[in-house]
């Protein structure tokens, strides 16, 4: 998928199993929205093919549209339409819509039901967008950054709703740049970066079952050969991954021995730790190890 000279999505090959929640995870600009909009039939891929429910999203768009629900990023409503009016309008375009009152209850839209769209908060607009995506009882819903701008309660409501959709037989595909969202919600995660798929798996697979980690950040760049000498000091039961010139990740049993070895190594090499974090390997670490980038697209430590 190219825009002019820039290739937004390149050689992306992924599939989504029915009745699961799949998260497409990646930093801003990774190509998540482009990927989703290609599935929704808004864009025609220059190369390769896309099938949703066995249909071509562009050629078979009219057959596909009633069967999918779409939540766009940002607006998508008349600025003067009231929240519930907008939801009811979308419901009327479908043959067997959900009860809009029930959806409004579930997503906390009743308080702002009579509020014109332009005066809704960002989180309320997001919840309305989600309601509009599911009201037609679709087989597949595509939700683009569903919880961006939501408060914690609304996020939990949204997660509960998406989980229930999956349990009731709906296939959910979402994009997110929140690691915790993907880790908590998704059955399958595809990590993409700069338009390429860099890893796929269940949260457990991607985090290697939550292996313990030590994350070391130092005040000035490591001396030459630092990772190798640390690896040698620690032995083969752990794995040292360089993340940047001032940080690295030790994956493996983070017990007394490992910790003592790391701090002794720091002393011997005249390296001053800025932080030394013990934790479990999470998606953030996976992502860092794969790309050398924080999910925000910044170099670590900035």
């Amino acid at each position: 998928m190219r825009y002019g000279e820039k290739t937004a999505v390149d050689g992306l090959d992924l599939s989504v199993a029915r009745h699961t929640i799949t998260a497409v995870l990646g930093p801003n600009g990774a190509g998540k929205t482009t990927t989703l909009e290609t599935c929704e039939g808004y864009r025609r891929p220059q190369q390769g093919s896309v099938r949703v429910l066995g249909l071509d999203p562009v050629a078979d768009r009219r057959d596909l549209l009633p069967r999918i629900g779409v939540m766009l990023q940002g607006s998508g409503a008349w600025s003067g339409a009231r929240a519930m009016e907008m939801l009811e309008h979308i419901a009327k375009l479908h043959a067997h819509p959900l009860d809009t009152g029930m959806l409004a209850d579930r997503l906390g839209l009743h308080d702002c039901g009579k509020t014109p769209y332009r005066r809704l908060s960002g989180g309320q607009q997001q919840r309305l967008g989600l309601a509009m995506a599911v009201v037609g009882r679709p087989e597949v819903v595509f939700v683009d950054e569903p919880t961006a701008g939501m408060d914690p309660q609304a996020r939990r409501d949204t997660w509960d709703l998406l989980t229930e959709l999956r349990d009731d037989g709906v296939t959910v595909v979402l994009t997110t740049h929140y690691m915790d969202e993907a880790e908590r919600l998704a059955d399958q995660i595809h990590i993409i970066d700069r338009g390429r798929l860099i890893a796929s798996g269940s949260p457990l697979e991607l985090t290697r079952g939550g292996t313990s980690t030590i994350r070391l950040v130092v005040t000035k760049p490591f001396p030459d050969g630092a990772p190798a000498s640390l690896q040698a000091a620690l032995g083969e039961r752990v794995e040292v991954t360089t993340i940047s010139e001032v940080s690295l990740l030790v994956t493996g049993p983070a017990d007394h021995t490992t910790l003592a070895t790391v701090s002794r190594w720091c002393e011997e090499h005249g390296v001053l730790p800025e932080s030394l974090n013990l934790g479990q390997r999470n998606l953030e670490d996976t992502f860092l190890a794969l790309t050398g980038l924080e999910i925000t697209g910044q170099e670590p430590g900035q």
Partner: protein
Amino acid sequence: MTGTGTFTPRPGSAPLLRQVLAQSAMEAKLMLRNGEQLLLAVVIPVLVLVGGVEAAKHVDFGLDQRPIDALTPGVLALAVMSTAFTSLAIATGFERRYGVIKRLGASPLPRAGLLAGKIGALFLVEVLQFAVLGAVAFALGWEPAGGVRTVLLGLEALLLGTAAFASLGLFVAGVLRAEATLAAANLIYLLLMAGGAVVLPTTAYGSSGHLLTWLPSGALGEAMRGALIHGDCYGREQLVLLVWAVIGTVLTARTFRWE
């Protein structure tokens, strides 16, 4: 898959007609709720009608009939122009801006249905405008030409005028940004209202007035006057409106971007 859950898939489109009616009702409702659009649709035409009749007592517009009979058809034409051109252009411009058309593009409503819905909304608003303006005009003593022919010719002018102005309105909304559409649609409306022979007959514009019948505004005004004053149709105005509708449709089809 349980088959009995709240969200168990049961996809499907509503029948197309029901979708189009829902879309028309929604768009008409939004148009009438918007203060500026209501001003344009009803308030200004009523003011022009009442003000024009009053002014004609003091100023000579060179009218051949009683002022109320001469001005009412033109004011109805003005009402069509305001809705089919200005309101439609502005509403569509902002729909593109706010991603409404993109959102509806992911709904079961096909584009032809969206277009049909917009046309339906225009007629709903126009029926309301004609009811209000007709009531005001009759209260001021309006006596249009009678008979079925008058009604049919009036409807014909309404349809052709709506087609011409709506296609031009969509063209403007498709090529300009929302703010520019807002400005252009209002400016063109004001210019045509003042100098486009829509309210006043072409004879009021002096010796070159007949040129104004080539404009969609002049053609619609003359068609309405022909129908409602004389119960007659000259054919030329209708042809001019049809040509403008074709020009507008071709331009729109070539340039309109839905997003």
